[in-house]
């Protein structure tokens, strides 16, 4: 390998390395931070990353800020874990990433009622059932946010009109019927909201008078109170109930968890677990809404993809495209080269042999002139000329034509010069010994010209592969499609996915042709001296 080629190869490798480096960074650069519990606990960060098959490109902030939610709001952090019901989520306009692979355990809230109470008060079950599914996480967070600073959640609920419909449809207490119902209001903020909502609805739609009882923190005690008749209704988190009341392992799947809990409450405690209210108390991963929308990350899978290397992510997603475009590119180049070869080889030979001296000069000048037209302009020019003579201006035909025009000169010139340069005495002897012109051409001139002609073919090939990235402009396809798309949208990954295969294609072809050249070159022309 000579120095020039080594330098060229070096430059190409450096360029490729640069592009890879630029595109091998994560698609989105995010600063994560996680609470201590999430970093170390079971079903924590490590398991999450395993489940979604990624790892954060940037290490989580260490130590984590005290108030993660506030830190996101202040843009010190981009991703963090949070409680699904944290009102800070609404305060800082964050969004909870959808757990599309169900990594986090569902832990829905539902109302737990003594069956006796439901039997006793006709219509109570319908009223309570009506609440099911109506309280989303978002609603609860908003309620809690509004209640911050206010002491009375009941007032907030009423004022806010969050349960507007139920309260509006208030039928007023049934006169004379002073029956009472004891509703437990637990300490947990989410459950508190649920209790108040239930109380409000009961008050509004049945004649019952609600006694609110502070419920403390222990779920087990709370359930015992219901069983013993000390209270009639309390909200619970299903997963927590399974764990604390029945000592059961976590049950994956919302429906299944609810069904299991419902059965056991009915059979073992004679309590009725109503349908889930809609919100749940679980860990979640949150981001600023702004970031999420800008980077199109709405699920944890999106987050995982965003942390992939740009190019890798792109190739994963568009591998088929890249392959088919590369093949198309190869086909464009191959066809153009075949045509160029079929034209310039015989023409080059004819020019070298004709007595018509002007012909060679003329043809070479024209081919040389074509070469001086910038490749981009040539593509446009071909389309234009095709338009003038009523040929298709778009598609493979004008594209390949432009490529052929470009590939002509190197092959033509090298064929012409190499045949002209064959030692005159060799030709004279060949003639003198009785070879026909045909034999001289095929047995002497062409074999001796192969190295130079092949050099021309190699130049033409490398050029054509490069220029073939431009014929996308006339809709001829090829890797240029990706490059142009990348340029227009300013996506480096698309750009790289187009450029890298083209560069690799050029390199491989060059080396392959170099090998072919070596193979075709007659042995006597290889060794230097003897």
């Amino acid at each position, binding site marked *: 390998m000579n120095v020039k080629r080594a330098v060229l190869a070096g430059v190409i490798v450096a360029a490729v390395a640069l592009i890879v480096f630029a595109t091998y960074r994560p698609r989105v650069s995010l600063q994560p931070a996680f609470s201590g519990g999430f970093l170390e606990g079971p079903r924590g960060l490590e398991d999450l990353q395993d489940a979604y098959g990624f790892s954060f490109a940037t290490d989580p902030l260490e130590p984590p800020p005290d108030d993660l939610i506030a830190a996101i709001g202040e843009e010190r952090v981009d991703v963090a874990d949070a409680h699904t019901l944290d009102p800070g989520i609404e305060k800082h306009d964050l969004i909870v990433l959808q757990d599309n692979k169900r990594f986090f355990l569902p832990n829905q809230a539902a109302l737990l009622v003594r069956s006796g109470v439901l039997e006793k008060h006709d219509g109570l079950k319908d009223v309570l059932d009506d609440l099911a599914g109506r309280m989303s996480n978002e609603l609860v967070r908003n309620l809690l946010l509004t209640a911050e600073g206010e002491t009375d959640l009941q007032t907030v609920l009423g004022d806010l009109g969050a349960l507007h419909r139920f309260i509006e449809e208030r039928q007023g207490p049934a006169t004379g019927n002073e029956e009472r119902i004891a509703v437990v209001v637990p300490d947990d903020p989410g459950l508190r909201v649920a209790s108040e909502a239930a109380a409000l609805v009961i008050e509004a739609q049945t004649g019952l008078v609600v006694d609110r009882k502070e419920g403390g923190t222990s779920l087990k005690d709370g359930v015992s109170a219901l069983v013993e008749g000390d209270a009639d209704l309390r909200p619970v988190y299903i997963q927590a109930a399974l764990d604390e009341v029945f000592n059961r392992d976590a049950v994956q799947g919302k429906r299944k968890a609810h069904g299991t809990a419902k059965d056991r409450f009915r059979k073992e405690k004679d309590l009725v677990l109503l349908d889930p209210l809609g919100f749940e108390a679980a860990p979640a991963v949150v981001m600023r809404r702004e970031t999420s929308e800008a980077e199109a990350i709405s699920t944890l899978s999106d987050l995982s993809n965003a942390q992939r290397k740009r190019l890798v992510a792109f190739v994963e997603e568009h591998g088929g495209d890249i392959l088919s475009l590369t093949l198309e590119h190869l086909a464009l180049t191959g066809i153009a080269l075949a045509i160029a070869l079929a034209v310039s080889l015989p023409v080059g030979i004819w020019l070298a042999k004709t007595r018509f001296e002007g012909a060679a000069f003329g043809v070479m000048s024209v081919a040389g002139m074509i070469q001086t037209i910038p490749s981009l302009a040539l593509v446009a020019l071909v389309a234009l000329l095709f338009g003038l003579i009523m040929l298709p201006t778009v598609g493979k035909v004008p594209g390949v034509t432009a490529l052929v025009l470009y590939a002509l000169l190197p092959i033509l010139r090298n064929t012409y010069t190499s045949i002209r340069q064959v030692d005159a*005495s*060799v030709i004279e002897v060949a003639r003198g010994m009785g070879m026909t012109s045909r*034999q001289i051409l095929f047995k002497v001139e062409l074999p001796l010209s192969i190295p130079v002609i092949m050099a021309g073919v190699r130049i033409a090939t490398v050029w054509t592969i490069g220029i073939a990235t431009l014929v996308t402009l006339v809709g001829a396809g090829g890797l240029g499609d990706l490059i142009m798309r990348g340029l227009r949208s300013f996506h480096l990954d698309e750009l790289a996915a187009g450029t890298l295969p083209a560069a690799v294609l050029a390199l491989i072809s060059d080396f392959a042709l170099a090998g072919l050249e070596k193979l075709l070159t*007659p042995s006597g022309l290889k060794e230097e001296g003897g």
Partner: protein
Amino acid sequence: MIVFEGVSKTFAGGVEAVKNLDLEVREGETLILLGTSGSGKTTSMKMVNRLIEITAGRILLEGEDVREKDVIELRRRIGYAIQHIGLFPHMTVGGNVGVVPRLLGWDRERIRRRTDRLLDMMGLPPDDFRDRYPNQLSGGQRQRVGVARALGADPPIVLMDEPFGALDPITRSQLQDEFLELESEIRKTILFVTHDVFEAVKMGDRIALLDEGVLQQLAEPAELVEHPANEFVDQFLGQQRFQLALLTRSVKESMERREAGGEAPEPPPDVRLRARGSLVEALDVFKRTGETRLPVYEGERYAGTLQKQRLLDIISGVLGETSEQEEAS
């Protein structure tokens, strides 16, 4: 064998290269076309295998006009060697020597036997050289391959255009000697072009001296040297005349023949005087050995003796001849 009848060549630019040449190359002889550059010697030769076409007159080859023959067939029957050798660089030595046999469609085995024999004759051991490429050979080796190639298909006629021209004097002289040896065995009809009068005298059976396309003299070397036909020939020989005169006389014609049953005198072991050698060679051997009397050999056979005094007499005779001529002119 080859007869030039009133042959003329006028090139496109109007240059008359050969004017009305009449010449016959006899079967088995080596005829030298001698002349300066531009004398028309190469043009004359190339008209035989029609690398250059005749303008007027005709050339007969074995009685047939060359222009009536198929040019390709004609050329394949004529061996051709040139100064620049023109070996095919992409073919092996064997491939080069076998070119014409292959064109003629000989079978593989016959070609191989032929090329091996030719390489052997040219002093290039076939096993060593057959598969080498021209760029692995020295200048002298290439020239030998060039000559072997000219003899490839055993043509009856060989055209040689200064075939030893590109060599250094020592290699050239060595190749000339070898070729003379070879020529005596194969007896080809050879048309040999050179500008070197010594080579002409050494190699030729007859010499045709050309100037400006006109034949000046056609004669055997000794005749040419001793009796120049005109002033041009005389001037062409110039100061070399004396040396040439000795060169054209062989040892054989000057020695005393061996008496029947005569034994060879004690020969100086390393230098032998060859019967075929010229008197210039004899002079050299006398100088090197310091003897006054030398045995002469024809091949391995003792053929006679040459006295130093006899040589000196001849030299003074030649001097006399040449000075007479100088006085006359």
